[in-house]
């Protein structure tokens, strides 16, 4: 099944919240993973691993550096669905 961008944002916010302790409603599309959410590279890879499983997508390592904001990740995951 395909997830809507809204569902992906909600699911991603849950993953980020579990990883960082930030409330889910602070994980907004315009937030930068590094600058706003203080997520280091190891945490980012954890989030990627969990997101791949949750949304059944593949997020290649060389794509991760392009995911600067939560919105970038949501768009990528939405586009990658069905290609895993």
């Amino acid at each position, binding site marked *: 099944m395909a997830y809507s961008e809204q569902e992906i944002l909600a699911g991603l916010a849950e993953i980020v919240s*579990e*990883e960082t*302790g930030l409330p889910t409603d602070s994980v907004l599309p315009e937030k930068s993973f590094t600058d706003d959410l203080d997520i280091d590279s190891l945490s980012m890879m954890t989030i990627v*691993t969990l997101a791949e*499983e949750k949304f059944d997508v593949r997020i290649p390592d060389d794509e991760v550096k392009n995911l600067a904001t939560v919105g970038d990740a949501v768009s990528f995951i939405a586009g990658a669905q069905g290609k895993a």
Partner: protein
Amino acid sequence: MSHPIDVVVTGLGATTPLGGDVPTTWAAALAGESGARPFDPEWVETFGLPVTFAATIKVTPDEVLTRPEIKRMDPSAQYAIIAAREAWADAGAPEIDGERLGAVVSSGIGGIWTTLEAWDTLREKGSRRVLPMTVPMMMPNSPTAYVSLEFGAKAGAHAVVSACATGAEAIGYGVDMIRSGRADIVIAGGTEATIHPMPIAAFAASRTLSLRNDDPQAASRPYDVDRDGFVIGEGAGVVVLESAAHAAARGARVYGRIAGVGLSADGYHITSPEPSGDGQIRAMKAALAESDVTAADVVHVNAHATSTVVGDLIEARSVRGALGEDSDHVALSATKSMTGHLLGGAGALETIFTVLAVRDRQAPPTINVETPDPELVLDLVRDKPRQLRDGDVAALNNSFGFGGHNVALVVTSV
């Protein structure tokens, strides 16, 4: 010959089968409570485990840590951090240059939950689902590394490992860091979190666990004629060690001194203690020789005594061998009768018990001894705490581990 740098204990922390902190744990120990209880019956059904109980932790980490902390740390590190935070606060959160602060908080087995869960994930879902935090969570230096990170301990973060002697050896290493001038304060102790079906199956396979499934609370019974093995426990104990001069300068409350550290190895067998107790005796004698007290000053011994048929008696004879006639006035306590065996955490928790016994002049009880082994040659404290004499006193804490590791610590009053 005592060392010119005196090392004292200024903070205590623990999370154990008896309680989520030191005051609760110590009160339960003095009251003779048992921390043994049945574990998840599904484990028994699924895996056919021959043992159905353990001394599981009383306060689970999810009651005290945040979700991200729990996700980033193996349970062995979670217990260590909980105990370290209590110990540090108990010491008055001393202000210190990080380069003069050390960490030595070890686990005997390491991040076994993380290791096994990652293996399950790999087999069920493939390599891409194995989490990136797996390595920093399974490495055996993870607890000491997290303690170092949290408190900014930069003089060195070490993880000495010697199976069930680990916690005591870590404290000994911490004492040495201060005596050698590398640090003024060291956060030291041991932790373990191995109550998982695989290690239980493995310990059961080595025939070292009690099988008293019908009465878990009576299963750990060191020196009783009907003892049949140890009860696996979990948890952590952490102490704040400090040079006496540093503690005095900041007006710290001092619980007691670690006056001597004795280490030896049996060089005999990978699991069995050497029958004559030679290695154990050498460790106790070395600890006393390094201290400024003699066997005549020793009023209490916290025994390693795990409730195994062979090990308990070897130790009792070793105490007599090390202390000679002075062992007649020793109150012997086997606190694993209450806590179970915390493996890498045991030596640290029992050091805490020894420090408190000396401070309070109260030797904790040994429970479940209905008929003492007739070969026991020492005065065992049974069922109720024993008042120790006033005046300056000393005590020994013994810890021995698979592999033939022997550690004895001399604790004295202040």
